[in-house]
């Protein structure tokens, strides 16, 4: 299922965002070797401070198995400010109906390890369908995605081939990066869904997820008020130091309120 997190609801999903930053560190730093800043095992940059929208793929246990980040191309975004190499120094596209999709990745290790029948391909398609459907519902007609060649192959294999590429493919860390342009249409959404056999609504209900997370054992000992407070503190942290302090506070509160030994393996 796909959970949309943005500035309006991020205070409810601090732990999901934290897991997402860890996934991004494993993928973009460890696997791809991109020049991204990782602090305390979390990849987080200045664009995360600009209230982006994230689409997070969750498995049946509400664990993060994929994510992306959406920004408007009318304002500050990565192709304008960070990925100039891809555009050969040219100014980027600017349109209210074009969004930029970056930090698009899947947790292949977790999905393979878990082996619950959901394949990497299915999760990728669910996330791609989520991106297309969320954009379509928001009046967006095209999305430009910064991806590595492996993700580009996944797009093509999933009947979700980009209609073109902008700029050129550049070396980035252990892999390459390129900017793919995809029109956002009902036909594209139907193709992705048909390819993966996705039916019905793929978007998670915010309240259901928030309740499930609270009941997951991460916080049964904390009152809802304290859980909310901790999540708010974690999501409001503007620096890594603040984030660490907020997480430490959460741990301390949990152990203080813990009534039984921690059985987490």
């Amino acid at each position, binding site marked *: 299922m796909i959970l949309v997190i943005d500035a309006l609801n991020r205070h409810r999903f601090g732990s999901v965002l934290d897991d997402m930053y860890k996934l991004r560190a494993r993928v973009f730093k460890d696997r791809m070797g991109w020049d991204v800043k990782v602090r305390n095992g979390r990849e987080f940059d200045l664009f995360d401070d600009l209230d982006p929208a994230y689409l997070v793929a969750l498995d049946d246990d509400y664990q993060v198995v994929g994510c992306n980040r*959406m920004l408007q191309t009318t*304002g500050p975004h990565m192709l304008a400010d960070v990925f100039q190499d891809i*555009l050969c120094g040219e100014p980027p*596209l600017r349109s*209210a109906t074009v969004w930029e999709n970056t930090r698009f990745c899947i947790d292949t290790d977790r999905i393979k390890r878990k082996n619950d029948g959901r394949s990497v391909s299915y999760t990728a398609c669910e996330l791609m369908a989520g991106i297309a459907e969320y954009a379509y519902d928001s*009046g*967006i*007609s095209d999305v430009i995605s910064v991806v590595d060649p492996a993700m580009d192959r996944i797009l093509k294999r999933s009947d979700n081939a980009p209609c*073109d590429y902008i700029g050129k493919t550049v070396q980035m860390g252990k892999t390459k990066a390129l900017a793919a*342009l995809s029109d956002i249409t009902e036909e594209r959404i139907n193709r992705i869904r048909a390819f993966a056999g996705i039916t019905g609504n793929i978007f998670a209900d915010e309240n259901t997820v928030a309740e499930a997370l609270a009941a997951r054992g991460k916080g049964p000992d904390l009152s809802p008020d304290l859980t909310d407070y901790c999540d708010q503190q974690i999501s409001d942290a503007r620096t890594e130091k603040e984030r660490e302090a907020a997480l430490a506070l959460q741990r301390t509160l949990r152990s203080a309120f813990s009534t039984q030994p921690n059985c987490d393996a």
Partner: protein
Amino acid sequence: MIKPTNLVDIASTPGRQRDYVAHLKTLCDSLGVEHATYFSANPISGTMHGFTTYPDAWKAHYVSEGLQTHDPTLSSAARSVAPVDWKRLDRNDAFGRVFRDANDFGLPNQGVTVPIRGLFGEIGLLCACATMSSNEWTKLRRDITGDLLSNAVHLHDTVMNSDPLLRALRQPNLSSREIEILQWVAAGKSQQDVGDILSISPRTVEVHLRSTREKLCTISTAQAVGRAVSLGIIQPG
């Protein structure tokens, strides 16, 4: 098929004669909504810009009660990437405060706010609302969201460009590809032709032209050609 955009021109009217409220009224009629509001703050001077089709009595009440400091259709929606249907806003005290009063004035409680993030990180907001059944509203909002986005960026850029300092800072920055495509269009080539000539998909040509129109603050490609010629970016066709 690319849906034609329902875009109402404001930029081609000379600055001093611009009637933003009349513009919003035309926009409401063409999109089938009851009221529209535009709001932004100049990123340098901090000057607020607000125009609305709401009745004067509501405007007076809104200002005298200082509702703009509570209004979630502005403050919450400004932090979103996607357009925000007012259904999504938290039903908190601030929401109650504004919407109870709006209800007393007989104003719609269904609407959408389209946030536009500008070049300098400033935000422009275009709100549209209408009284109708929830199902009808959901359908209408789906149909007009793309148009609202295009109109919002056009209106926002026009308002920002009306400031001489910002206009100087916001010189249109076209890529070589955008200039190349516009030059071929000026020479009378269709989007399909241009795609064939440059070996790119017609969709890519369309996206570049849309970006070009928005950068030049024009609503039609023909206007964009005219503007680019007058700025010396391309040669006359």
